[in-house]
């Protein structure tokens, strides 16, 4: 019972915050709603035995990515842009497509059933502690994708610096 109440609270707030974030005229307000959204998603992860991911969500998303957005908004002078129309002229078409795809997703999830369970049940994670369990899987089974992810981040760092620097003569 208490679980359902908490889930409904988080679900309602997540949906409301994401709706608010994409409809605000001021970009800054949208980013602040996103911040609330990320905190509530982190709270939802706590229900699903993902404490470490929940911390990473707050540190990386709320702490790093959203601050990056805030910096860029403060660097730019958006006074002209906020006065313009915020949605494209055919936005009902976008709504129609989104709702259609949502219907397909919701319908397809009615038939979901859980397949063979893996080895990391709650008892095993509790015995190993969560961070150790995630680390074990990450650095053994998924070591190569981990290296590729580090390469992606390296490319992003170099790309961002090269793109944003002033032209040298």
């Amino acid at each position, binding site marked *: 019972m208490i679980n359902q109440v908490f889930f409904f609270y988080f679900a309602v707030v997540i949906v409301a915050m994401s709706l608010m974030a994409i409809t605000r005229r001021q970009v800054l307000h949208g980013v602040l709603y996103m911040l609330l959204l990320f905190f509530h*998603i982190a709270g939802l992860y706590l229900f699903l035995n993902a404490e470490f991911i929940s911390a990473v969500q707050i540190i990386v998303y709320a702490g*790093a*990515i959203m601050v990056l957005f805030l910096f860029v908004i403060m660097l*730019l002078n*958006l006074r002209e842009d906020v006065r313009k129309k915020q*949605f494209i002229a055919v936005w009902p078409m976008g709504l129609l497509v989104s709702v259609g795809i949502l219907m397909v997703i919701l319908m397809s999830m009615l038939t979901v059933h859980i397949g063979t369970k893996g080895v990391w049940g709650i008892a095993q994670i509790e015995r190993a502690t969560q961070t150790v369990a995630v680390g074990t899987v990450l650095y053994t089974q*998924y070591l190569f994708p981990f290296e590729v992810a580090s390469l*992606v981040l390296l490319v992003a760092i170099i790309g*961002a610096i090269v*793109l944003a620097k002033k032209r040298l003569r």
Partner: protein
Amino acid sequence: MIPLNWYLWLSGVVFCIGMFGFVTRRNIIIMLLSVEIMFNGVNISLIALSHYLEDLAGQVMVFFVIAVAAAEAAIGLALVILLFRSKETITVDDLNELKG
């Protein structure tokens, strides 16, 4: 115990809200925000499936999604700064010089 379907429905709703924002907004920063919302919708379903399948692969995937999201935000915002420096606007409808 909350059924798995509730989490999957929530993730579908969040994903579609993000998609609606991406296709209808004209502000490029809000479009990038919408992409982040879509990433988060997918992350919810990955974490939920990871919990209900008792397999940590889903949580590991979320790490990679977050890494890619960080890279995408860095590159995307660098492009936004470039765009603003040359055109003084970030409204995508005003950037129509490539139209055929």
